[in-house]
């Protein structure tokens, strides 16, 4: 227990749920495996959307690619959140004080802002465009920002254990 952490995270780690995750033979391991599996699906779906927006796969309908890949991305993000929260609860007071974890949260926040901006302002312009049509600069920019930020999130996530 890290008493320097804000009380809510100390309480979360000390909670019955936190203890159950630590003491169960399989919950922590299942959450760890589930987090990586969700990450793989998420990264794949996001990469498909991002490379389409940056100009690859130009012979496809951008609206259709976004629609199909988004389903996987949303489902996988849900999986990442559930498994991530499970892993976090077990060691909340320590992890919240880890600078790399804080960086990871900030990067996730930026990536979600990028998605929100894209979905509200850019996707509506892109959705109906036919194949082999140059996409707006905003779409290309969103694609590059997205893939860069999510890779940074993954790298930060892996680095938490070392710092």
């Amino acid at each position: 227990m890290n008493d320097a952490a804000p009380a809510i995270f100390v309480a979360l780690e000390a909670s019955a749920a936190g203890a159950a995750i630590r003491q169960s033979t399989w919950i922590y391991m299942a959450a760890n495996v589930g987090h990586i599996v969700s990450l793989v699906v998420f990264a794949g779906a996001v990469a498909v959307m991002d490379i389409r927006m940056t100009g690859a796969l130009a012979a496809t309908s951008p609206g259709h690619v976004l629609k199909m890949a988004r389903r996987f991305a949303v489902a996988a993000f849900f999986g990442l959140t559930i498994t991530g929260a499970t892993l976090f609860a077990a060691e909340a007071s320590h992890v919240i004080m880890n600078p790399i974890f804080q960086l990871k949260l900030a990067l996730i926040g930026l990536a979600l802002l990028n998605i929100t901006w894209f979905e509200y302002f850019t996707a509506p312009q892109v959705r109906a465009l036919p194949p082999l049509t140059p996409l707006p600069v905003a779409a290309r920019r969103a694609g590059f920002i997205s893939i860069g930020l999510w890779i940074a999130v993954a790298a930060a996530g892996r680095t938490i254990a070392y710092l």
Partner: protein
Amino acid sequence: MRHPVIALSVLALLSGTAAAHHGWGSYDASKPVTVTGPILTSKYENPHATITVRGSDKVWTVTLAPTFRMTNRGALAEMIAVGKTISAYGYPSTVEKDEMRAERITVGGKTIEMR
């Protein structure tokens, strides 16, 4: 122009996964220690089981393995309970004072690898 970026990105992701074996970096493998003595406290918990042991020189905090691995390899909770005698071979932490990570432990006549 775009393709090297994508290729590099994929490479970055793959290398991150390949290096997904953590926790030994902050222990000094050039100064192995063997701590032998009674177990004072025992937490059979994830992500790693942790015990404190009264060694000949001081009380050590000994970091063991994830509990699923411990159970799988026969290092059961009752074998590393408070009061049992343990011998742990491992490496001292370069970060935490009086903490070491066990490479292997010997309890109840059985030697069990932790890595």
